[in-house]
């Protein structure tokens, strides 16, 4: 369907994006980048913890 429409119009559907939709793409890209930062930040925390816990026993 999309391909038919694209072939009829002769260009990519993305070229039909309005300026508002472009703004949405920018916002979503920015949000995705922030999400990646969150994941990276957490991974740094998580991966630098020791893999085996320190065990202390008394009595």
């Amino acid at each position: 369907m999309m391909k038919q429409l694209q072939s009829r119009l002769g260009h990519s559907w993305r070229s039909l994006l309005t300026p508002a939709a472009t703004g949405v793409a920018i916002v979503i890209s920015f949000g995705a980048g922030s999400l990646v930062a969150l994941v990276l930040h957490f991974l740094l925390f998580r991966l630098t913890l020791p893999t085996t816990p320190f065990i202390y026993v008394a009595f």
Partner: protein
Amino acid sequence: MSNPTNAAPRTNRPFFRPVSLIAGLATGMLGLAGAGFLAARTNWHTEFTRLHPMIAPESRYQPTVDELLAMIRANSSPEKVLVIVGGNSVLYGVGQPAPVMWTRSLQEQLGPDYSVVNLALRGSRPTDGGAVIAEALRDEYPRLIYIANVPPLLTADAIGGDDYRFMLLDAYYKGYLLPWEPRDRSLSNPGRVAREDRIGAWLDARVRYRSAWNWWTFHIFSTVPSPLSVSILQSLAARGQFRDEETNIEAIPFSQRFAGASFEADMGITRAFTERFYDRIGDGWQMREAARTEFDTFAAEAFPTALRSRTLIVISRNSPYYTSRLAPELRERDEIAVTDSISGWERHGYEAVDSGTNFDPADFGDRTHLTASGGRKLAVNVAAKVREMSARLFSNTPAP
């Protein structure tokens, strides 16, 4: 066929905009680093007693230097003499519930002009944890005394033990430590400190992931399950919900404390406590040259020279329940070792004190750990030395 002149130019532009994506990544990382910086400056240990297992590496929680500094700043005025207690489980007060732990007695003994903070950690060395915090606060609290304990003739590595080295690396890469060649040399030696640990601490000093996620772990929920918890829900609960619930060893009847299979093992350790340091010569004991060299080497490198006069090393002893069963010559050897340790530490510019000879068997919960009654005696013995140090070191040091 469509008219090519009316067609819009063909584009394969991806939905995600790289510039926006990278801007989001950079902004997100900056925001999280900022959150970490802010969290590090806030005291969230408002109910702090000591570093109990749920806020320590046993539960996979690694307190940052910054969060401990914030806790001390919130509770201790620089106008007072700040007494930071480091060392191992003996000074932590294993077997002493928080209301009767020995550092509370020490605070009572010293009075309101002093502020005692217990940063001892189970299984740690004199140069671990508390020592790092004391060094970081050396200028902010000019009237500061650091206390740690160690058995006779054992000293400390300049970079401490593996389990608590994260605190040393944390302070090192955040610029809190003095330059100290033996320590700096060991820290940069890949055979002593893993490269990934150094890279992790270096990155943390820049993006503060540990401060941010420790805050989250403490307040919201733990992203890392605690192996100390019995259920999954409890293992993920916010660490701030947990209190210092130390076992009261005095609740165990005295007759049961030293019984069982551990008696012979502990008796063996007590017999060999100072064996490797001395030779029997005639009726006396002589320290082995190798032992003296080892002690001197480690004591000379353990702490930066400038901090030694305000560092008090408490020489730990075994319970009299065991030492009273030793042959007289072995008891004599242990006494000599305590005396030699004190003079050895003092020779290198530290202060040192015997933990005490006035303990009864009931003052111990096992071979090494004190009960609340033993803790009170230790507090009296140590307080006398702390007051003496304070009078000598700080009588001319004005409060900031």
